[in-house]
Structures are given as structure tokens and as C-alpha cells.
């Protein structure tokens, strides 16, 4: 009988981008003035989805790909809660793709941080929906043949409230983007975080990203949808990071007449 099992220390590889994301998120939560007991971290399954276990918060670590509908249910039941999702590209862009489309369509007021390392880590190195063409794995033996999913363009087309991209190797920028998302009060916020995977993605390395990421210039008007789309389509030699798009569209919960009387969870008293 094993007496002492390893506890809740992060299950990530040394050098993993998840460590930086965890550190930045923990800091941004405080910077945003979010009360920890009012915060719910929601995730699916994968290495990134383990993050909520290492943060002081309420946690709903649900099923693979299903973080968004669970988060939607939580937000609808009590829209006073701060609901934040941290999960990977496989979870959000693959298994949960349909939910992502519809959560964006609803513009439900949750903040989504996608640890996008362009590879499946927990299952040991298969392609993800965002892997580049030509990426060779033990499953995609001739290299990935389909172009990667473009989550930012999808989010802009769906008129999400806030669409941003950052890089896990730039702690300062990542913190800024997280703070912008966490303090964005109404509607769906998507932050795609470019995150090197030191174990299974030898192609999109820290070095590879550093040579390509470029901060979006201050002159960019995030309310300009056409320009935003143009930025979202850029990938390759230059990858823009920053706030790409903003919209004034109201959140799903702000449009529901029943919620005008307060959160549903407070509507259960009689008399």
C-alpha cells in the first residue's frame, strides 16, 4: 500500500507555458479586484484544464470539451459570479467546437483563456485543430494536411465582445490581456494564448514565437471589424498579439428579462 501520494502540485512538464499562464492569471485576478470566493474557474480536460486546481477559487473541472456549456449554466444561475474558463486548444477548439460557436453567438459573459500549444499534450503528442500544416506526429505520420482553425477570425465573425491574443513567453503582455478580459464587464471574452509545449511541439517553440509575435500598434481601432479580421488572418512570419477586436454587443444574460429581478439563485425565496 502506498502511504503518501503526490499532492496537488502542478502536473506540468518543467518549462511548460502553463506555469507562466498560472502565474499571470493569479496576479491578474487580484489586479482586477475579483473576490476569490466570487470566482468560479471552469475547465474541461487536458493539461491546461488542470490549472483551476492550483488557484484559490471555486472550481468546476468538468468534462472534455464541455467547459463552455457548464460555465454558461453557472453564469445563468448566478450572473453575479465571475466565471473564467481556462482550457486547452484540444478542449475548446476540437472536442468543444460546437459549444464555442454557440457560446460566442450568445455572447455569454464568461472570460475564456485558451492555452493554445497547437498540440495534444495529455494524450502525448497528436495534432490539435490549430496545428500547422506539415506538423508530423505519430498519428499524422505524413504531417497535418488541413489548415489550422482560426479561432480569432471565428470570434470576430460571431461579434464577440472581446477578442485578444497573447504569448505565454511575454509575461507582461499576457498579464495585460488577462486584466483586460477580466475587467471587461459584459459579454464573451476570448484570449488565445500562444503557449509553447516543450515536450511535444518541437516546431512552435519559445524561440519560434519570439521571432514572430508582434504587438498590435496603439493606432489599431479594435471596434473596426474589417481591420480586426485582417489582423486575425495574419499567421506565419508575423503573428499579431494584443486586443484585436471589441464589440458593444450586450451579453446574453443582459438580454434575459427574468434576470432583471436579480440572479436566479436569489429568486428561490417565497413570499
Amino acid at each position, binding site marked *: *500500500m*502506498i502511504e503518501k*501520494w503526490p499532492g*496537488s502540485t502542478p502536473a506540468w512538464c518543467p518549462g511548460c507555458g502553463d506555469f507562466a499562464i498560472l502565474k499571470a492569471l493569479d496576479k491578474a485576478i487580484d489586479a482586477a479586484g475579483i473576490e*476569490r*470566493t*466570487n470566482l*468560479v474557474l*471552469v475547465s474541461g*480536460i487536458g493539461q491546461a484544464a*488542470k490549472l483551476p*486546481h492550483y488557484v*484559490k*477559487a*471555486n*472550481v*468546476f*473541472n*468538468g*468534462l472534455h470539451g*464541455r467547459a*463552455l*456549456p*457548464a*460555465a*454558461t*449554466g*453557472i*453564469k*445563468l*444561475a*448566478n450572473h*453575479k*459570479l465571475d466565471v473564467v474558463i481556462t482550457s486547452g486548444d484540444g478542449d475548446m477548439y476540437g472536442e468543444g467546437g*460546437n*459549444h464555442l*460557436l*454557440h457560446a460566442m453567438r450568445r455572447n455569454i459573459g464568461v472570460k475564456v483563456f485558451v492555452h493554445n500549444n497547437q498540440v495534444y499534450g495529455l494524450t502525448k503528442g497528436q495534432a490539435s485543430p490549430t496545428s500547422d500544416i506539415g506538423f508530423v506526429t505519430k498519428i499524422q505520420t505524413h504531417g497535418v494536411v488541413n489548415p489550422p482553425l482560426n479561432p480569432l477570425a471565428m470570434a470576430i465573425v460571431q461579434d464577440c465582445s472581446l477578442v485578444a491574443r497573447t504569448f505565454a513567453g511575454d509575461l507582461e503582455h499576457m498579464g495585460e490581456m488577462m486584466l483586460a478580459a477580466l475587467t471587461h464587464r459584459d459579454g464573451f471574452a476570448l484570449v488565445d494564448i500562444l503557449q509553447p509545449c516543450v515536450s511535444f511541439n518541437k516546431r512552435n517553440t519559445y524561440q519560434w514565437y519570439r521571432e514572430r509575435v508582434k504587438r498590435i500598434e496603439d493606432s489599431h481601432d479594435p471596434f473596426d471589424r474589417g481591420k480586426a479580421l485582417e489582423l486575425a488572418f495574419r499567421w506565419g512570419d508575423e503573428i499579431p498579439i494584443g486586443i484585436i477586436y471589441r464589440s458593444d454587443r450586450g451579453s446574453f444574460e443582459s438580454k*434575459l*428579462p*427574468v*434576470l432583471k*429581478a436579480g440572479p*436566479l*439563485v436569489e*429568486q*428561490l*425565496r*417565497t413570499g
Partner: protein
Amino acid sequence: MIAVPESARELNVRIAGEAGQGVDTVGSLLVEAFAEMGLHVFATQSYMSRIRGGLNWFDIRIADRELFSGREKADLLVALTQEAVEALRTEVAGEGVILSDKEGQHGAIGLGFAGAAKAAGGSAVMANSVAAGAVFAVLGYDLKHLVSRLEKEFGRKGEDAVRQNVGCARKGAELAAARGASLQAPDPVRAPAHVYSGSEAVGLAAATSGVKLVSSYPMTPSTATFAFLAGVADRYGIVVEQAEDEIAAINMICGAVYAGVPAMTTTSGGGFALMVEGLSLAGMMELPVFIMLGQRPGPATGLPTRTAQQDLKFALSAGHGEFPRALFAPGSPQQAYALTRRALETAHKFQSPSILLLDQYLADLRKNIPELDETFRPIDRHVVENPSSDYVRYAPAPDGVSPRALPGSPAFVVCDSDEHTEDGHITEDLGVRVRLQDKRMAKEKGIVADALPPELYGADDAEHLLIAWGSTYGPCREAVDVLTERGVSAAMLHFSQVWPLDAEAVRSTLGSAGARRIASVEGNATGQFASVLRGAGILGDCELILRYDGLPFTGEEIAERAAS
């Protein structure tokens, strides 16, 4: 063929036609009018999975005593199309009357519904009112009851609409009376005026019990409850969301109950199949989700608009892994109302999923019963009001039920779909695994102790015992009456909670089971409930009376098959 008991007077009126022709409109109009007159009404529907064409019918059985099931034969067939006459004429009783559009063979009396509507100053769509008027004349009922119903029905469309429809009803009555068609109809007896379908009863119970989020994907025959809840959402304060798929629906309600509100989803077999991973999540996280599962014949898409009791074993074992659950199966609109509340209470008391098994027959059947309570009386959610800051979600508890706190309180509420420690965090400690699995399963003992006992109808020493669950309650009950009338000793044992079962209690109810003929009456091809009873050590082999053609049992049919 066994005759219906002669002691009471009753009639079966069948309205038949194509989809889109207003079969449901005429049927609903008559159901409400008959109920307001004080007749006992029992209405069932048979329809095809299409928007236009085909053959649909609406049966309205009326009597001077309470009714519990439909009947195969019609006494009065109102056929809106010639195809309906051809298809259904053999299902008309010997002395029956057929009213049809065109003058036809087989003794059908042609009334020219649409033409009559125009002649009476109305439009072709008012053919429905012509037909309703004709029915009243054939049954010899005072037309004033129908007129008052039409006034209520069309009042908000304006005076002209009322006047035209009343004119059409009078025209229909005149035409039928001129042809001398008449039937001996039951006399009104002050039966209750409130008509409910099974679907509405579930919806009303959910709304009054405090369900705050309903997330579903439309699927026959569950959509009527979904729509009912949308209709009362503003009144009771409910968010009703049409999810992108059933996977989203179940995960949304998992999130909502985690955050503290009673929540539910409505679905049928195919949709439920997509929900099973989420059901397992509720088992692992100990979330009190509630699912209304409206059964229809499978496998796969099957017969979308027909009835079946084929998903009992599926609901019983759905979801990977092992976790406790409660399964309820109402047999009437009243039971649907009571058990919906009960299922929500059980889910919250034991922090486990509850499933209500309905089917197309019960979902769609309409019956007048005493008014159901519409007051908002939220159930006890068993929530800890002021948790301390060292709270852990899955604290050890002898009965397996840990104190439940909500996010937003001073406590941190941590839930994981992975195996977890008492504080909800992911673990691969195999000792903890066993401890937490035992804790979850310990709840089953409490659910068993609370399990509803089966209801016995008839003598406890009857020669024939019919075992029923869910919607076969009514038909089996009428079968017992038919058999008793014939001098055959018969009784029914009906289970409205089908899992878990208190095996000892049920065994003692069955008493000297070996001495008599026992038959399990089920709407499936394999006798699923009989198998569940065998598995629980409650019953050995028994006879099976099965039906799986997509139509409901009738009392006469069961009586005939049981006595053969």
C-alpha cells in the same frame, strides 16, 4: 372481444384527417367543451412525423365515470378526408356513426365541412367549427356549451371571429340533425373542469418546485413540456434556453445546479443517449440534475411520434462508471405532477441525478382532473447557508450526503470530474478513490429507504396480478375493472418509482405470488421491468404482455390477453 362494462355510459369520438387540417384544433375544442360540461374526458392522440398530409387522429373518450385509458373502437368517427374514412372505418363500432366531408360509401354521412363553413358566412378554416357542431348534434348535447367554448377560444380574435365560428358550429349541428344521426351519449356528472396533459403536469410541477433553468434540444415527445415551461417562464422566473445540442443541455444544467438553482432538461431516447456522459458527470460531482425522458420507439430515430417503454434499462444503466440515481415513472397526469416534484426533491436530498420516464402516450394524453396547485413552492435544496471558510465539498458523511455549499458563499466549492479528494481536488490516490466511491454509493441506501412503494389496485389475493410501471397504469387499471366485471379475480401492482426498489418491501406486497398468475404489462419487446424485478430478486419468471407497435395499450386489450 370483451365488451366495455355496461353499467356506465361512455362514448369514443375520433377526429381524423391530415396533418395541418386542424384535427388537433377540433379535438382540443371538444375536450375543453366536454370538460366544462362536467363529463369525464380522456383524450389521446395518434399522429405521424410530418407537418402536412398523412393520417392523424385525436380520440376523445367521454363518460359519466372517471376514465383511465383509450379505446380501440370509435363510436363516432369524424373524417376530414376520404383517406381517413377508408383507413379507419373498420375501427368504428357496430352502431357507430361516420361523419365525412363527401357523401360516401360505408354509410358515411357527407357534411361538406368547408363548403358548409363558407355557406354559414365563415371561411374554409372554420370547417373545424362545423365539425364540432355536428358532433354536438349527434351526441344530443345542448349547443350552448360549445358556443361558450368558442367565445372563450376566439374572443381575443374579435367579435367577428366569434360570430363566424358560432355560425359554423350551428350550421354543422343543423346539417347533422337533418340527417338524423344520433348516439346515446353519457350525461354530465360534474367532473372537474381542468384538463391537463402529462406534459403540462410535468412542466407545472417543475415550475412550482423552483426549477430556474431549463436547457433542452427539441425532440418529440418531450418538446411539449419544454414549450410549456417557456410559456410560464416569465410568470415563475425561469430561464428557458434552447441548447445547441443535448450535450450542451445536460452540461448547462450541471453548471446551473452547481451554482445553486434547481435545473432540468427534457429529451427523448436519442437525445438522452447524447447526455449520458453528462449524467455520469452529475454522478461524480454529486449534482442534483433532473431529466425528463419522454420515451418513443427506437432503436435510432425509430418512430418519432409514437409511444414506447423501451428506455427503462437504458436509463437505469446510462453513464459510465457506477453511481446512484432515482428513476420515476408516472402513470397519469396527477402522478406526473407529484413525481416531478418528488424527483427534484430526491435529487436534492441525495445530491444525485433523478430521471422521470414519460412516453408519448402519457405526454400527449389529456384528462380532466382536480386543479393542480399553481403556487410557487420551491423545494428544499438542502444547501448549507453559512459555510465556514474551511469547508470541503465532499466531507465524510455516514449516509454519503456531504453538506452542500454554493459558490459565492464564504466557502470554496471545488468539484472535479476526475476522482477527487474530500476537498474536490484531482487525485490519483487509490485509497482516496475507494473511500470516495464508497461515499457516493452509500447514498443509495437512503434513496432505497425513501423509495415509493408500488400501488395495489384490486384485491390483494386476486387470481390474476398485472404488474405495471409508468404509463400502463391507466390501461391496466381498466383491464382490472373489465376482468372484475366479468367475474375474473384480478388486480394491478403499479410501480411509479422503478429504481431503486426496496426488494424486501415489494416481496412482502407480492405475498403469495407463487399461487397466482402474474403478468408484466410493458410497452417494449423484451419485458424490461420484469427483468429488473428478477435481477433484484423480487420476482421469478412471469408472463409477459408486451406491445411495441408504437401505439398504447387499451384496457380491453390487456383484459383479453391476460385472461387468454
